[in-house]
């Protein structure tokens, strides 16, 4: 067959297969991310069926997937929401950071991956999946619940933490020394502050640069701006993803809403490709050795997220059932854990097993998260009934 024909057939089969898997996933109430990863694992290196001829396209597509994931993360909250979120929930945010980054750090150090591996794993276990959580809360009709603002404000804080964390991670991955690392922290804090100020004071000018009443022109401008900023950022060794993320924060108001609406389908398409490629590059044979660690990590970080949510909800005067719901809702990890692992692995500065561990971990957490949110109430009721037997 002709080369182009083969490539088209392969791509078509991948997308169609992912579509079938995605529908199945939401049917049974979980995120499709684990299915995409499994799809990638099944093909590619060490898998059942190596795909040939589309590597170039798929690697570019997965890069665009990361850029769009982070651009939309930046667009999700306005600069004003980020600032008020920081003011209101910084304490809960710090508790969340410490409790959930620590298990990742501990595991990385125990496996001898050194400080760089520890920094990457800290991000993998810390960051909740705002995509999965927002979808699950909407599906379960919990947006009107009193604990929901608590959950969302923790997600807002994580969003901000990512803005500081990602530049540091990329600097360290690029082989910065301790001094270089500290400079990176200083620079990234400065840049994030500048971008927030810019967005708060002059957000409409940034928005005006990309805005257009014509949807076609608008789409091309937003996408073009994102790729340009990402490319320049990557040239400056700050990582394409960070550039896109900061652009997302700087775009505000109705422009941000329109951009989100327009880019969402594109993001879903390219992000699916990103998960598949990540799975493709992970050798399935490397999974079994880290499975035990992944399970233990999943167990511990489920408890730490539930504890975070419980504590944060309690501070807002929410009753026990609401605290349990807040905790369980935060459990899901997904796209951003994989993005972090992807950055670490592609820089080549960490142990190869990190990709396998991150894949296994996200496979578990992206399934467990929505299930935990869904079944926390019956489980909590059962636990209460067990603890207080028939006497009551």
């Amino acid at each position: 067959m002709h080369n182009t024909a083969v490539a088209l057939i392969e791509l078509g089969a991948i997308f169609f297969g992912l579509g079938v898997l995605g529908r199945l996933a939401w049917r049974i109430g979980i995120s499709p991310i684990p299915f995409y990863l499994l799809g990638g694992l099944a093909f590619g290196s060490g898998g059942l069926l190596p795909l040939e001829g589309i590597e170039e396209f798929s690697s570019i597509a997965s890069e665009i997937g990361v850029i769009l994931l982070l651009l939309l993360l930046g667009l999700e909250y306005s600069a004003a929401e980020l600032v008020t979120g920081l003011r209101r929930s910084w304490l809960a945010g710090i508790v969340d950071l410490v409790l959930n980054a620590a298990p990742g750090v501990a595991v990385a150090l125990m496996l001898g991956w050194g400080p760089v591996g520890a920094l990457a794993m800290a991000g993998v276990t810390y960051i909740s999946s705002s995509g999965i959580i927002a979808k699950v809360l909407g599906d379960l009709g919990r947006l009107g619940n009193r604990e929901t603002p608590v959950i969302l404000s923790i997600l807002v804080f994580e969003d901000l933490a990512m803005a500081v964390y990602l530049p540091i991670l990329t600097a360290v991955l690029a082989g910065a020394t301790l001094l270089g690392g500290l400079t990176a922290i200083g620079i990234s804090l400065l840049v994030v502050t500048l971008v927030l100020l810019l967005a708060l004071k002059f957000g409409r000018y940034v928005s005006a640069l990309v805005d257009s009443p014509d949807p076609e022109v608008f789409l091309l401008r937003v996408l073009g701006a994102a790729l340009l900023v990402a490319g320049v950022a990557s040239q400056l060794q700050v990582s394409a993803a960070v550039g896109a993320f900061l652009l997302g924060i700087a775009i505000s108001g109705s422009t941000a809403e329109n951009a989100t609406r327009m880019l969402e389908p594109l993001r879903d398409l390219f992000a699916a490709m990103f998960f598949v490629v990540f799975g493709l590059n992970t050798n399935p044979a490397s999974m079994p050795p880290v499975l035990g660690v992944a399970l233990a990590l999943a167990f511990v970080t489920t408890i730490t997220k539930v504890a975070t949510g419980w504590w944060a909800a309690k501070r807002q005067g929410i009753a026990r059932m609401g605290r349990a719901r807040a905790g369980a809702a935060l459990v899901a990890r997904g796209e951003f854990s994989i993005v972090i692992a992807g950055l670490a692995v592609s820089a080549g500065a960490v142990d190869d097993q990190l990709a396998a561990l991150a894949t296994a971990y996200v496979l578990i957490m992206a399934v467990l998260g929505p299930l935990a949110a869904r079944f926390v109430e019956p489980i909590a009721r059962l636990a209460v009934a067990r603890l207080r037997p028939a006497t009551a």
Partner: protein
Amino acid sequence: MVNVEVTPLPGIGTRQDFVSRGGRRLGVITYRDGRLELIVSREDDPDACTASIPLTVEEAGALANLLGAPQLVAQLRKENDGLSGVHTKHLPLAHGSPYDGRTLGDTALRTRTAVSVVAVFRAGTVHPSPRPDFVLGGGDTLITVGTSEGLAKAADVLDRG
């Protein structure tokens, strides 16, 4: 005074709610794209919601109509307290009424029943002091003032022409 609490939902929209005298939380979620959802808290767990019902703008208007008209009547009733024999009533105009799509002047309500229409409620908004050329539509609620016989007659006129 009902104390409506406004809570921002970052990335989603705003929640506005209040706690009723019976201890139930009632409110509305406004999404960033303008969609509305009516929320009602659960009886056994006021933190959670037993229902969140998506409403279109028209549906929200209709609901506001149903809930708002009696309130306006109560207010007018209070103001007219001093006048004996004057009553305030809200009269719904049914779809398919003879005056559905015709003007207020066509009803000749003032001449026939001595009843005044002081306001028309439509899709959640009040149209105060409608003129005779005001076009009525099915689903409108007419806020009327008059004697009790006059009001009974007016209801009849609106129903049957």
